């Protein structure tokens, strides 16, 4: 019994190690295209964490949108621009040192807040109300949150129109 209680914990440590490894690679690579691949790894690790927490739908959404679409978008953005130049070697300037101090301070504050928060005790009750996770999401989305759902389509249409306008502006630049 203890093994099954501990198995998610072991999984968590493996996934956390994977995410941290990808994050360190993201920071240490010299070429942006490798950084984009590393960020894809971070997204996949986050999806695994969501699934580990029991949020199947969010996990699959993370895979589909972030690991799939957003990483491709980043790749495209890199391939459209001049990406051949590698970053110059790292130097310790005053600004970099100040940034490092600020980052460490922020991390310390976040850790302090997380440690001092009292988390609700683990409840055995089924939060999905006996349904599988995507069904529970669907019921909540289409019964309780109808208006926000329709607003999402407006947000998507705004995004689409924005993309079209950006592309059209570029066409006019070519004509000039």
């Amino acid at each position, binding site marked *: 019994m203890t093994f*099954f209680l501990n*198995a*998610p914990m072991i*999984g968590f440590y493996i996934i956390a190690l994977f995410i941290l490894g990808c994050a360190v690679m993201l920071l240490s690579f010299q070429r942006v*295209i490798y950084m984009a691949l590393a960020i894809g790894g971070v997204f996949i690790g986050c999806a695994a964490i969501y*699934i580990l927490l*029991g949020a199947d*739908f969010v996990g*699959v*959404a993370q895979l*589909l*949108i972030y690991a*799939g*679409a*957003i990483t*491709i*978008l980043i790749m*495209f*953005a890199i*391939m*459209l*621009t*001049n*990406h*051949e130049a590698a970053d110059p070697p790292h130097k310790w300037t005053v600004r970099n040192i100040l940034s490092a101090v600020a980052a460490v301070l922020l991390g310390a504050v976040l850790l302090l807040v997380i440690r001092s928060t009292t988390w609700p005790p683990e409840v055995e009750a089924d939060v999905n109300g006996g*349904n*599988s996770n*995507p*069904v529970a*999401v*669907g*019921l909540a*989305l*289409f*019964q309780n949150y*109808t208006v926000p*759902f*329709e607003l*999402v*389509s*407006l947000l*998507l*249409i705004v*995004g*689409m*129109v924005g*993309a*079209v306008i*950006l*592309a*059209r502006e*570029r066409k006019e630049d070519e004509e000039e």
Partner: protein
Amino acid sequence: MFQYWNGYLFVALFIILGILLPVASLWVIGPLLRPNHPTQGKRTTYESGLEPFGDARVRYNARYYLFALLFVVFDVETLFLYPWAVSYKRLGMFALVEMLIFLFLLVIGLVYAWRKKVLEWT
């Protein structure tokens, strides 16, 4: 809860198999079976039979980016279709109308993109 983890153990198993298969065939079993006589010609990059030229990392046309952006929008739309489809029997007619409104608004966006000729490749 045990049932839940059981399902994902198989997913983990498939991921491990997927990683091990190319590793085994390329670096472990493959070198034992295949002959190994590399020459200069064999080592060049395969480019559909032509002599390879230029760098692999060329700049792409900016028009591809628009397709990537539209892909993200429709990817998000697909994501919302899934919970609707699996809970459809429980939701009934009201959810169908909701989804039709949702899809109609996105089709307006697609028609807008179409009318502005961004889907054409000229």
